[in-house]
Protein backbone atom coordinates (compact mmCIF):
# COMPACT_ATOMS: atom_id res chain seq x y z
CA UNK A 1 0.00 0.00 0.00
CA UNK A 2 2.51 2.57 1.12
CA UNK A 3 4.34 2.52 -2.20
CA UNK A 4 5.45 6.12 -1.99
CA UNK A 5 7.28 5.89 1.31
CA UNK A 6 10.59 5.30 -0.41
CA UNK A 7 10.66 8.75 -1.97
CA UNK A 8 10.14 11.23 0.80
CA UNK A 9 12.65 13.77 -0.32
CA UNK A 10 12.80 15.71 2.92
CA UNK A 11 13.27 19.43 2.54
CA UNK A 12 15.46 20.74 5.32
CA UNK A 13 14.34 23.31 7.88
CA UNK A 14 16.81 25.79 6.42
CA UNK A 15 15.47 25.32 2.89
CA UNK A 16 11.87 25.88 4.05
CA UNK A 17 12.92 28.96 5.96
CA UNK A 18 14.65 30.38 2.88
CA UNK A 19 11.54 29.79 0.75
CA UNK A 20 9.38 31.47 3.41
CA UNK A 21 11.74 34.46 3.61
CA UNK A 22 11.58 34.81 -0.18
CA UNK A 23 7.78 34.79 -0.03
CA UNK A 24 7.81 37.50 2.64
CA UNK A 25 10.37 39.50 0.64
CA UNK A 26 8.34 39.31 -2.60
CA UNK A 27 5.21 40.34 -0.69
CA UNK A 28 7.10 43.31 0.73
CA UNK A 29 8.08 44.34 -2.82
CA UNK A 30 4.43 44.12 -3.88
CA UNK A 31 3.31 46.30 -0.98
CA UNK A 32 6.12 48.76 -1.75
CA UNK A 33 4.93 48.96 -5.38
CA UNK A 34 1.51 49.84 -3.99
CA UNK A 35 3.06 52.50 -1.79
CA UNK A 36 4.85 54.32 -4.63
CA UNK A 37 1.72 54.39 -6.88
CA UNK A 38 2.58 53.16 -10.35
CA UNK A 39 0.27 53.33 -13.36
CA UNK A 40 -2.42 50.62 -13.11
CA UNK A 41 -1.29 48.63 -16.19
CA UNK A 42 2.37 48.55 -15.14
CA UNK A 43 1.32 47.72 -11.60
CA UNK A 44 -0.87 44.85 -12.78
CA UNK A 45 1.89 43.29 -14.88
CA UNK A 46 4.49 43.57 -12.11
CA UNK A 47 2.14 42.27 -9.41
CA UNK A 48 1.03 39.30 -11.50
CA UNK A 49 4.65 38.49 -12.35
CA UNK A 50 5.63 38.51 -8.68
CA UNK A 51 2.53 36.52 -7.70
CA UNK A 52 3.25 33.83 -10.27
CA UNK A 53 6.78 33.51 -8.86
CA UNK A 54 5.31 33.20 -5.35
CA UNK A 55 2.74 30.62 -6.49
CA UNK A 56 5.51 28.62 -8.17
CA UNK A 57 7.61 28.71 -4.98
CA UNK A 58 4.67 27.52 -2.88
CA UNK A 59 3.80 24.72 -5.29
CA UNK A 60 7.38 23.56 -5.86
CA UNK A 61 8.60 23.53 -2.26
CA UNK A 62 5.72 23.80 0.21
CA UNK A 63 3.40 21.55 -1.82
CA UNK A 64 6.35 19.35 -2.69
CA UNK A 65 5.52 19.24 -6.39
CA UNK A 66 9.17 19.61 -7.41
CA UNK A 67 9.87 16.25 -5.83
CA UNK A 68 6.93 14.36 -7.31
CA UNK A 69 7.08 12.21 -10.40
CA UNK A 70 7.15 14.18 -13.67
CA UNK A 71 3.87 12.59 -14.83
CA UNK A 72 2.00 14.19 -11.90
CA UNK A 73 3.52 17.60 -12.59
CA UNK A 74 2.66 17.29 -16.29
CA UNK A 75 -0.93 16.35 -15.44
CA UNK A 76 -1.55 19.25 -13.09
CA UNK A 77 0.47 22.30 -14.12
CA UNK A 78 -0.23 22.53 -17.90
CA UNK A 79 -3.95 21.87 -17.34
CA UNK A 80 -4.11 24.72 -14.86
CA UNK A 81 -2.10 27.11 -17.04
CA UNK A 82 -4.03 26.32 -20.24
CA UNK A 83 -7.47 26.64 -18.61
CA UNK A 84 -6.64 29.96 -16.98
CA UNK A 85 -5.07 31.26 -20.21
CA UNK A 86 -8.23 30.31 -22.10
CA UNK A 87 -10.37 32.17 -19.55
CA UNK A 88 -8.25 35.28 -20.03
CA UNK A 89 -8.02 35.00 -23.83
CA UNK A 90 -11.77 34.66 -24.27
CA UNK A 91 -12.91 37.22 -21.72
CA UNK A 92 -10.59 40.16 -21.97
CA UNK A 93 -11.04 41.24 -25.58
CA UNK A 94 -14.75 41.48 -24.83
CA UNK A 95 -14.26 43.76 -21.85
CA UNK A 96 -12.14 46.06 -24.02
CA UNK A 97 -14.96 46.06 -26.57
CA UNK A 98 -17.41 47.20 -23.90
CA UNK A 99 -14.97 49.96 -23.02
CA UNK A 100 -14.75 51.16 -26.62
CA UNK A 101 -18.49 51.03 -27.22
CA UNK A 102 -19.05 53.61 -24.53
CA UNK A 103 -16.71 56.13 -26.21
CA UNK A 104 -19.05 56.37 -29.22
CA UNK A 105 -22.24 56.92 -27.25
Amino acid sequence: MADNTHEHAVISFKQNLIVWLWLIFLTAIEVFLGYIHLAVNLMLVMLMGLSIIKAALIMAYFMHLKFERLSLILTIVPAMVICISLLIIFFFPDSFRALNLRAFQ
Partner: protein
Amino acid sequence: MAEAIKNEQILSAWGGGVRPYAVGDKKLGMWLFILSDSLTFAALLVGYSYVRLSSEVWPTPFSFSPSIVFSTVMTACLLSSSFTMVMAVSASVRGNRSGVVKWLLATMVLGAAFIVLHLIEWMHLINDEGLRPFQIPQAWITEFGAGASPLFGATFFTITGLHMFHVFTGVIYLGVIAALTAAKRTSHEDVEISGLYWHFVDLVWMFVFPMIYLLSIKA
Protein backbone atom coordinates in the same frame (compact mmCIF):
# COMPACT_ATOMS: atom_id res chain seq x y z
CA MET B 1 16.08 -1.27 -5.85
CA ALA B 2 14.34 2.04 -6.61
CA GLU B 3 15.12 1.57 -10.30
CA ALA B 4 13.55 -1.89 -10.30
CA ILE B 5 10.38 -0.55 -8.67
CA LYS B 6 10.24 2.25 -11.23
CA ASN B 7 10.62 -0.12 -14.21
CA GLU B 8 7.97 -2.40 -12.84
CA GLN B 9 5.59 0.52 -12.43
CA ILE B 10 6.17 1.73 -15.98
CA LEU B 11 5.80 -1.76 -17.49
CA SER B 12 2.52 -2.49 -15.80
CA ALA B 13 1.12 1.04 -15.69
CA TRP B 14 -1.70 0.08 -18.06
CA GLY B 15 -2.29 -3.30 -16.50
CA GLY B 16 -3.92 -1.87 -13.40
CA GLY B 17 -2.97 -2.35 -9.79
CA VAL B 18 -0.18 0.22 -9.83
CA ARG B 19 -0.01 3.95 -9.36
CA PRO B 20 1.38 5.67 -12.42
CA TYR B 21 1.80 8.93 -10.52
CA ALA B 22 3.55 7.21 -7.61
CA VAL B 23 1.29 9.00 -5.12
CA GLY B 24 -1.56 7.56 -3.09
CA ASP B 25 -5.16 7.78 -4.27
CA LYS B 26 -6.07 10.31 -1.60
CA LYS B 27 -3.19 12.59 -2.50
CA LEU B 28 -4.01 12.41 -6.21
CA GLY B 29 -7.63 13.22 -5.31
CA MET B 30 -6.54 16.30 -3.37
CA TRP B 31 -4.39 17.46 -6.29
CA LEU B 32 -7.33 17.11 -8.67
CA PHE B 33 -9.56 19.01 -6.21
CA ILE B 34 -6.94 21.77 -6.02
CA LEU B 35 -6.83 21.89 -9.82
CA SER B 36 -10.59 22.39 -10.06
CA ASP B 37 -10.73 24.83 -7.15
CA SER B 38 -7.96 26.94 -8.66
CA LEU B 39 -10.14 27.29 -11.75
CA THR B 40 -13.07 28.45 -9.60
CA PHE B 41 -10.93 31.22 -8.14
CA ALA B 42 -9.40 32.01 -11.53
CA ALA B 43 -12.91 32.41 -12.98
CA LEU B 44 -13.90 34.75 -10.14
CA LEU B 45 -10.75 36.85 -10.50
CA VAL B 46 -11.14 37.03 -14.29
CA GLY B 47 -14.80 38.00 -13.79
CA TYR B 48 -13.74 40.73 -11.37
CA SER B 49 -11.14 42.01 -13.85
CA TYR B 50 -13.77 42.02 -16.60
CA VAL B 51 -16.24 44.04 -14.55
CA ARG B 52 -13.53 46.43 -13.45
CA LEU B 53 -12.13 46.93 -16.96
CA SER B 54 -15.52 47.57 -18.53
CA SER B 55 -16.65 50.01 -15.84
CA GLU B 56 -16.36 53.71 -16.39
CA VAL B 57 -14.81 54.29 -12.99
CA TRP B 58 -13.73 51.66 -10.51
CA PRO B 59 -13.58 52.81 -6.89
CA THR B 60 -10.10 52.60 -5.35
CA PRO B 61 -11.03 53.09 -1.72
CA PHE B 62 -8.13 51.55 0.23
CA SER B 63 -5.80 54.02 1.88
CA PHE B 64 -2.26 52.74 2.39
CA SER B 65 -2.59 53.19 6.11
CA PRO B 66 -4.50 51.61 7.76
CA SER B 67 -6.26 49.45 5.07
CA ILE B 68 -3.23 48.12 3.16
CA VAL B 69 -1.07 47.81 6.27
CA PHE B 70 -3.90 45.80 7.84
CA SER B 71 -4.25 43.44 4.88
CA THR B 72 -0.45 43.06 4.71
CA VAL B 73 -0.54 41.80 8.30
CA MET B 74 -3.24 39.32 7.23
CA THR B 75 -1.00 38.18 4.36
CA ALA B 76 1.91 37.71 6.76
CA CYS B 77 -0.34 35.59 9.02
CA LEU B 78 -1.26 33.32 6.13
CA LEU B 79 2.31 33.03 4.83
CA SER B 80 3.57 32.19 8.31
CA SER B 81 0.81 29.60 8.71
CA SER B 82 2.15 27.93 5.55
CA PHE B 83 5.55 27.76 7.18
CA THR B 84 4.18 26.17 10.38
CA MET B 85 2.27 23.71 8.17
CA VAL B 86 5.52 22.74 6.46
CA MET B 87 7.00 22.18 9.92
CA ALA B 88 4.05 19.91 10.79
CA VAL B 89 4.68 17.82 7.68
CA SER B 90 8.39 17.50 8.36
CA ALA B 91 7.65 16.50 11.97
CA SER B 92 5.36 13.86 10.48
CA VAL B 93 8.18 12.55 8.24
CA ARG B 94 10.22 11.97 11.38
CA GLY B 95 7.26 10.22 13.02
CA ASN B 96 7.05 12.89 15.73
CA ARG B 97 3.31 12.88 16.50
CA SER B 98 3.35 15.45 19.29
CA GLY B 99 5.37 17.72 17.00
CA VAL B 100 2.74 17.33 14.28
CA VAL B 101 -0.07 18.26 16.69
CA LYS B 102 1.88 21.24 18.03
CA TRP B 103 2.65 22.67 14.57
CA LEU B 104 -0.89 21.98 13.33
CA LEU B 105 -2.27 23.93 16.30
CA ALA B 106 0.10 26.82 15.49
CA THR B 107 -1.16 26.74 11.90
CA MET B 108 -4.77 26.79 13.10
CA VAL B 109 -4.10 29.76 15.38
CA LEU B 110 -2.57 31.74 12.49
CA GLY B 111 -5.47 30.73 10.23
CA ALA B 112 -7.98 31.82 12.88
CA ALA B 113 -6.07 35.10 13.30
CA PHE B 114 -6.44 35.67 9.56
CA ILE B 115 -10.21 35.10 9.76
CA VAL B 116 -10.61 37.41 12.77
CA LEU B 117 -8.61 40.20 11.10
CA HIS B 118 -10.56 39.72 7.90
CA LEU B 119 -13.91 39.92 9.72
CA ILE B 120 -12.80 43.11 11.49
CA GLU B 121 -12.08 44.57 8.07
CA TRP B 122 -15.43 43.41 6.67
CA MET B 123 -17.27 44.90 9.65
CA HIS B 124 -15.44 48.18 9.14
CA LEU B 125 -16.40 48.28 5.44
CA ILE B 126 -20.02 47.30 6.10
CA ASN B 127 -20.78 49.30 9.24
CA ASP B 128 -18.45 52.30 9.12
CA GLU B 129 -18.12 52.84 5.36
CA GLY B 130 -21.58 51.53 4.42
CA LEU B 131 -20.45 49.23 1.61
CA ARG B 132 -23.09 46.80 0.28
CA PRO B 133 -22.83 44.06 -2.37
CA PHE B 134 -24.58 46.10 -5.05
CA GLN B 135 -24.23 49.61 -3.70
CA ILE B 136 -21.24 51.75 -2.84
CA PRO B 137 -21.35 54.37 -0.05
CA GLN B 138 -22.48 57.89 -0.96
CA ALA B 139 -19.09 59.22 0.12
CA TRP B 140 -17.39 57.06 -2.51
CA ILE B 141 -19.72 58.36 -5.25
CA THR B 142 -18.80 61.91 -4.23
CA GLU B 143 -15.11 60.97 -4.23
CA PHE B 144 -14.84 58.89 -7.42
CA GLY B 145 -17.70 60.37 -9.47
CA ALA B 146 -21.21 59.32 -10.48
CA GLY B 147 -19.83 56.66 -12.84
CA ALA B 148 -18.22 54.72 -9.99
CA SER B 149 -19.27 51.10 -10.36
CA PRO B 150 -21.70 49.84 -7.70
CA LEU B 151 -20.34 46.33 -8.23
CA PHE B 152 -17.25 46.90 -6.10
CA GLY B 153 -18.90 45.24 -3.11
CA ALA B 154 -20.14 42.29 -5.15
CA THR B 155 -16.64 41.42 -6.37
CA PHE B 156 -14.97 42.19 -3.05
CA PHE B 157 -17.34 40.23 -0.82
CA THR B 158 -17.63 37.27 -3.21
CA ILE B 159 -13.92 36.73 -3.76
CA THR B 160 -12.65 37.45 -0.25
CA GLY B 161 -15.71 35.68 1.21
CA LEU B 162 -15.09 32.49 -0.73
CA HIS B 163 -11.44 32.61 0.26
CA MET B 164 -12.34 33.19 3.91
CA PHE B 165 -14.67 30.20 3.72
CA HIS B 166 -11.75 28.11 2.45
CA VAL B 167 -9.60 29.25 5.38
CA PHE B 168 -12.44 28.47 7.78
CA THR B 169 -12.88 24.99 6.29
CA GLY B 170 -9.11 24.51 6.43
CA VAL B 171 -8.96 25.34 10.14
CA ILE B 172 -11.63 22.71 10.82
CA TYR B 173 -9.85 20.21 8.56
CA LEU B 174 -6.53 20.76 10.36
CA GLY B 175 -8.31 20.44 13.71
CA VAL B 176 -9.66 17.04 12.70
CA ILE B 177 -6.22 15.93 11.46
CA ALA B 178 -4.61 17.17 14.70
CA ALA B 179 -7.14 15.28 16.83
CA LEU B 180 -6.74 12.09 14.79
CA THR B 181 -2.94 12.41 14.91
CA ALA B 182 -3.08 12.76 18.70
CA ALA B 183 -5.20 9.57 18.72
CA LYS B 184 -2.60 7.87 16.45
CA ARG B 185 -5.12 7.35 13.70
CA THR B 186 -3.43 9.22 10.84
CA SER B 187 -0.74 8.18 8.40
CA HIS B 188 1.97 10.52 7.17
CA GLU B 189 0.04 10.88 3.94
CA ASP B 190 -3.03 12.29 5.73
CA VAL B 191 -0.96 15.08 7.27
CA GLU B 192 0.74 15.79 3.94
CA ILE B 193 -2.63 16.01 2.13
CA SER B 194 -4.03 18.46 4.67
CA GLY B 195 -0.85 20.47 4.05
CA LEU B 196 -1.55 20.51 0.31
CA TYR B 197 -4.99 22.00 0.96
CA TRP B 198 -3.64 24.61 3.37
CA HIS B 199 -0.84 25.73 1.03
CA PHE B 200 -3.39 26.03 -1.76
CA VAL B 201 -5.49 28.42 0.33
CA ASP B 202 -2.33 30.46 0.90
CA LEU B 203 -1.52 30.34 -2.82
CA VAL B 204 -4.94 31.73 -3.75
CA TRP B 205 -4.46 34.65 -1.37
CA MET B 206 -1.20 35.44 -3.21
CA PHE B 207 -3.43 36.43 -6.15
CA VAL B 208 -6.40 37.87 -4.23
CA PHE B 209 -4.25 40.24 -2.17
CA PRO B 210 -2.57 42.07 -5.09
CA MET B 211 -5.64 42.06 -7.33
CA ILE B 212 -8.26 43.15 -4.80
CA TYR B 213 -6.20 45.27 -2.43
CA LEU B 214 -2.99 46.52 -4.02
CA LEU B 215 -4.73 47.52 -7.25
CA SER B 216 -7.38 49.46 -5.30
CA ILE B 217 -5.14 51.77 -3.33
CA LYS B 218 -6.48 55.31 -3.01
CA ALA B 219 -4.64 57.60 -5.45
